[in-house]
């Protein structure tokens, strides 16, 4: 019977992983399901942020402090390496967002919309419309 009982401590003790999974799935779902190009990027951001949480919570030691020498040999330190990695990953995330938003701006300028279904319709017209001119779209 004991094997079937829900191990509440096991579940609650790993709440950081649960939060990570929920956030990750939320972000991924938004990215895939939304048609608005800005909302897609917001979803992507949430998705990336969940990874930051995963890494940072991995490095946390209960009762641990920031890795600054205190002179006390009994001090418990948290692992600083995941934090440093995530510092880099945050920069990568910001750069990706910036490039993505810059592309959205240009798409808005040339297509006049940032809704995916309307863009697909326009592109369908370009492919199969009555000889709609392609290219040279930039004024």
């Amino acid at each position, binding site marked *: 019977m004991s094997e079937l009982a829900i191990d509440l401590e096991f579940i609650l003790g790993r709440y950081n992983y649960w939060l990570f999974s929920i956030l*990750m799935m939320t972000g*991924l779902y938004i*990215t895939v399901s939304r048609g608005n*190009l800005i909302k*897609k990027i917001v979803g*992507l951001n949430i*998705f*990336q942020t969940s*990874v930051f949480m*995963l*890494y940072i919570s*991995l490095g946390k030691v209960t009762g641990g402090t920031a890795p600054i020498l205190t002179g006390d040999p009994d001090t418990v330190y948290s692992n600083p*390496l*995941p934090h440093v*990695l995530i510092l*880099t*990953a945050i920069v*990568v995330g910001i*750069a*990706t967002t910036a*490039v*993505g938003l810059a*592309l*959205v701006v*240009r*798409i808005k300028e*040339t*297509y006049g919309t940032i809704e995916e279904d309307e*863009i697909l319709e326009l*592109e369908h017209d*370009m492919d199969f419309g009555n000889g709609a001119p*392609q*290219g040279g*779209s*930039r004024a």
Partner: protein
Amino acid sequence: MMALIEPHLPALQVVIPLVAAPFCMMLGRGGLAWIFASVVSLATFVISIALFAQTYDGTIISYHMGGWAPPIGIEYRVDILNAFVLLIVSGSAALVLPYARSSVAAEIPAERQALFYTAFLLCVAGLLGVTITGDAFNVFVFLEISSLATYALVASGAWANKRALTAAYNYLIMGTIGATFFVIGIGMLYSVTGTLNMADLAVRIADHGDSSTLRMGFVLILLGIGLKLAMFPLHLWLPNAYAYAPSAVTAFLAATATKVAVYVMLRFMFTVLGFDYEFQADTLRMVVLPLAIIAMFAASLVAIFQDDLKRMLAYSSVAQIGYILLGLSLLNETGITASIVHLFNHAVTKAALFMVAGCFIFSAGTSSISKLAGVGRDMPWTTAAFVAGGLSLIGLPLTVGFISKWYLVLATLELGWWPVALMIMASSLLAIIYVWRVVEVAYLQPAPAGVTRKEAPLSMLIPTWIFVGLSVWFGVNAMLTATAAGRAASALIGSSHILWKD
């Protein structure tokens, strides 16, 4: 002088293009920036040759960044596999840049060309960094440097066709999802081993044994890299990105970007995760192998029905990646040799073919196959290059395509899987159809009246023919590539413990 530089070659390989990129931006309008980028890419090519020569006999160069010894410091680790891929990347860059001069001038406004070459150099730096580094997290960072530069490069096709913007956007979304999966996977590996150095990871994972965290890490890395290398059915970003990017970019990306992702896959599957672990071998053989075979057929079939030459070649790339993944997932030494040798062979062939497409766009103003009727008479050299490249794509003897397929078929026969060998040959027949369609239109149909098309300029023809020449040279005499690939494959197999259990 030489003695001073030589120990630092691995660092210089990445640092030179990375540092050169911002300078390139300051060089004003096109011409100077192009000369600068060409000189830089030639320098990286020379370094790659030197590294390849040093590692050809199996030596492993370990370079400690900033003098910090691994596993704490970041290590650049060059063995024959990296050196081979470095050679592909920097060689492609050095050959694409001379070609880019005229092609880019026609497709991108003069005031933006310096920015274009800056992004190009960043992309080269990123790809070289992914290849050379021995640190798992470093791979992610360089992967994103090259990907971000690639998104910008693809989007710069927007002056010719605005659909480049949406293509780049979709690539960005898919690429970032892939990179994020990859970094979660690395997080999983880190959480069980506490290290990021690849060699150290391999040792500690072997000590650790099987666990569900490791399995999760393996799946996430496979998925993430699968997105980056356009593994069927995760290839949806590729056709549009290749079709609407500027011609020079397409030629470069087709030769390098997916190849580097395949390298990362090989490295993680065999060197890092390669322990005696059925789950991993089963996934490769039960999931990746069928997908690779589907890619060979599905993508080739789709390619047959494309009207745009660049799109057709892009779908053909998805099929060719199928061959590479097939070799990898056979999990025997000959199969991996086939994979590695096809990295080079496909890079050379596809670069030549996309350059031909670029020549058509430059001179005939279109890459639509139906509008290229009779082009064989107006542009004989360009069209001949297409025929030679096409033969290599099909895998006719005396071309590099044959060498790859030979090894691939040998590998399947070693396992006694002759139906797979037959499928490889059957899918080659599909390649004949889509290559023939272009040849038929170009040579056998009359040119429409009143259309004048001049042969492409020499600055574009010569790099194209160098790639064609390479695809024939290494098809006739495959000693160098096959030996390098064979040694790399046996090193990979040696570093892993995967044994297929029947």
